[in-house]
């Protein structure tokens, strides 16, 4: 119990003194996970809409696999990205291993299935509502997708935020592909793992509370920006 109080007070002091190192790794955490969120949403949301709208042969299989991949173990993703990006790997020439870019790539792979699955559920329901009308209006495939994405935007926001939550709290993959290098690829989660390993529980806990606060702050600000739940409409 004492450790927790110590951690809380550590977190408090780290935050109000604008500790330089804390600011740096917090910002890096944010940059990596927000980049992953934007890229993954750009892939997953249109994919989810296409899966809802189009009927093709392997559709059910794709959806089932996507659902299964929601539980993709980050460590394994990290390992695979590591092998692909390592010097002797197929993309080794890019020299991306142990950079924040590699961390973004790993996180994108981890959260695309999650965002796509959750988004697909919402879009499928909306599509069953809209189907007859849009078919009757002879809208193009692209217009269907755009209409669904726009009208389901609040549900899609939830899907994206779930993805962000998984990305910002993830440690296994970014530890492997980022390497937890001080000043280069160290982020909140890898720093927590490191401090815990060193026995610095109070500092680790302090970082942990900062991480939780960060996740809450991002969620709240996105909700505020998109005015969800403001107009009690849909």
């Amino acid at each position, binding site marked *: 119990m004492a450790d927790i109080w110590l951690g809380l007070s550590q977190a408090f002091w780290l935050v109000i003194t604008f500790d330089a190192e804390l600011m740096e790794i917090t910002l890096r955490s944010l940059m990596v996970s927000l980049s992953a969120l934007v890229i993954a949403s750009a892939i997953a949301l249109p994919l989810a809409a296409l899966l809802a709208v189009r009927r093709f042969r392997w559709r059910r299989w794709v959806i089932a696999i996507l659902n299964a991949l929601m539980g993709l173990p980050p460590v394994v993703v990290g390992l695979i990205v590591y092998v692909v990006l390592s010097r002797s790997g197929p993309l080794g020439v890019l020299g991306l291993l142990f950079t924040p870019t590699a961390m973004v790539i790993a996180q994108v792979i981890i959260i695309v299935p999650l965002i796509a699955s959750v988004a697909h559920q919402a879009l499928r329901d909306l599509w069953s509502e809209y189907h007859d009308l849009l078919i009757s209006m002879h809208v193009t495939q692209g217009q269907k997708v755009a209409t669904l994405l726009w009208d389901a935007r609040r549900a899609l926001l939830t899907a994206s935020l779930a993805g962000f939550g998984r990305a910002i709290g993830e440690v296994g993959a970014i530890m492997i592909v980022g390497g937890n290098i001080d000043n280069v690829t160290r982020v909140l989660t890898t720093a927590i793992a490191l401090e815990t390993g060193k026995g610095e529980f109070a500092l680790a806990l302090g970082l942990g509370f900062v991480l939780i606060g960060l996740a809450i702050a991002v969620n709240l600000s996105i909700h505020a920006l998109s005015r969800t739940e403001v107009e009690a409409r*849909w």
Partner: protein
Amino acid sequence: MSHLLPLTVQGAETTHRGKRLVGPIDLTIEGAGATVIVGPNGSGKTTLLRLLHGAARLTHGEIAWNCPMDEAQLHQAFVFQRPVMLRRTVLENLIYPLKVRGTSKREARKSAVAWAAKIGLSDMIDRSALVLSGGEQQKLALARALITAPKVLFLDEPCAALDGRATREVEVILQAAKQNGTRLILSTHDMGQARRLADEMLFMLGGKIHEFGPADTFFEAAQTASARAFLKGDIVE
């Protein structure tokens, strides 16, 4: 101005899992006015409408408009029994069909505002369409269908869930559309409505057309026994 009509249907059938839902249908629809489809539940009214509109699969036979199919589809609209509301505001619902056709934003907005006034929803244009009452939603669906000035408008029991006043409001809009040259093809259970709107009557039973002809003849001297029984209010199966 292109001419959609006459619409010629020959031996048209639609089947689902080996079961024939409607057909074979032979039918020619031409001229102006309104064709009203009546018949008991499950007689295939909805499926026939969807078939003519191209929303149900044609498994046999032929449906031909007096112009290429994609052009014909551009000049039709469909109003469903239960109105489908886009999760947007009233105004955005009205703008939507114009927007997908590439009408400019300003023009679409102008036309949408005018239509909102026509259906008495001017005060509601910035409200969500989902908070409207059933009658208001159906009027909105009707305006959304008419805003593109379709040459043929299909309506599937448009007043099934509406009370007398809302029904009258919908019928006023329909009469005006008819005056403006929109060909109406609608189904109904309301024989009063059929008498008020119909120029042509079509009686469906068991997925087939049992009778098709001018409205006066149908109401005064129906040819088939089943149609006479139906008009009398008997339960026809």
